[in-house]
């Protein structure tokens, strides 16, 4: 049982992530997606907003998505506290500084804005959309990568 407490290999993790697609569809009738939750939180925070994107959003109907992300959070808690030999180190220690927090916040803005504009993230487009053989999702996934590569390689040059 020791393996359970170590890092799970790709051939266990990948198929299990893929299985969440049919599990959601068959058990709940829902289409996998995470980033739409950001929209729902905004709609909940500003119930009187006149912005069409927040107003024309049936949060009651989409509330399942907020339950789903609450589950993901709970899953992170269970994995880190009951299924790990040692607490996982998920971010470099340098982020624990004012500069680091600002960096994460700005990066978060790009994630929130970008995923909403693209109408999906790595879950909705790359896992769900590609599983559904959608061309827009393939284009989206390639775009995610172009952005990531640009920041990783170009951003490093910029920082120096």
């Amino acid at each position, binding site marked *: 049982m020791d393996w359970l407490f170590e890092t799970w290999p790709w051939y266990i993790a990948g198929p299990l992530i893929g299985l969440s697609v049919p599990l959601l569809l068959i058990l709940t009738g829902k289409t996998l997606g995470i980033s739409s939750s950001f929209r729902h939180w905004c709609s909940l925070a500003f119930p009187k907003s006149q912005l069409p994107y927040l107003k024309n959003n049936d949060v009651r109907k989409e509330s399942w998505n907020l339950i789903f992300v609450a589950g993901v959070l709970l*899953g992170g808690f269970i994995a880190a506290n009951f299924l790990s030999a040692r607490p996982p180190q998920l971010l470099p220690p340098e982020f624990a500084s004012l500069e680091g927090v600002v960096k994460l916040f700005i990066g978060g803005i790009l994630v929130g804005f970008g995923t909403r504009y693209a109408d999906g993230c790595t879950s909705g487009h790359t896992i769900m959309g590609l599983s*559904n053989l959608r061309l827009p999702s393939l284009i989206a996934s390639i775009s995610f990568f172009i952005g990531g590569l640009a920041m990783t390689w170009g951003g490093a040059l910029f920082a120096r």
Partner: protein
Amino acid sequence: MQRLFVLLIGVMFGIVLTKSEVISWFRIQKMFRFEEAHMYLIIASAVLVGAISVFLIKRFNLKTIQGEPITIKEKKWQKGVVIGGIIFGLGWAITGACPGPIYAQIGAGTWLALATFAGALVGAYLFAVLQPKLPT
């Protein structure tokens, strides 16, 4: 009952993301630097399993356990898929977290991820404000 299933599948999703270190900034860096295949193999095998499942669901016209027809929300083409996609990618490389991992990181006790989450909410609100003016 349906809500319980949603929660449980979310928990499974969060556990797998955490235990395979998909939510680790280091793994995302190693992916974008082409230093290891871990992330690529996870994504590829997840899509393979997902695609076979969707194919079977469509081929045999499967219904939900509540007996309702399964309809998959179809992603539509618009310019934001590229523009927004690239913007998201930039943020993904900075924070080391896409939306699912943001939630899992918080659950795993990485409190700094709250800054990423706060940013993501501001970003989504910003999109709501700018949406009428953005090219589609």
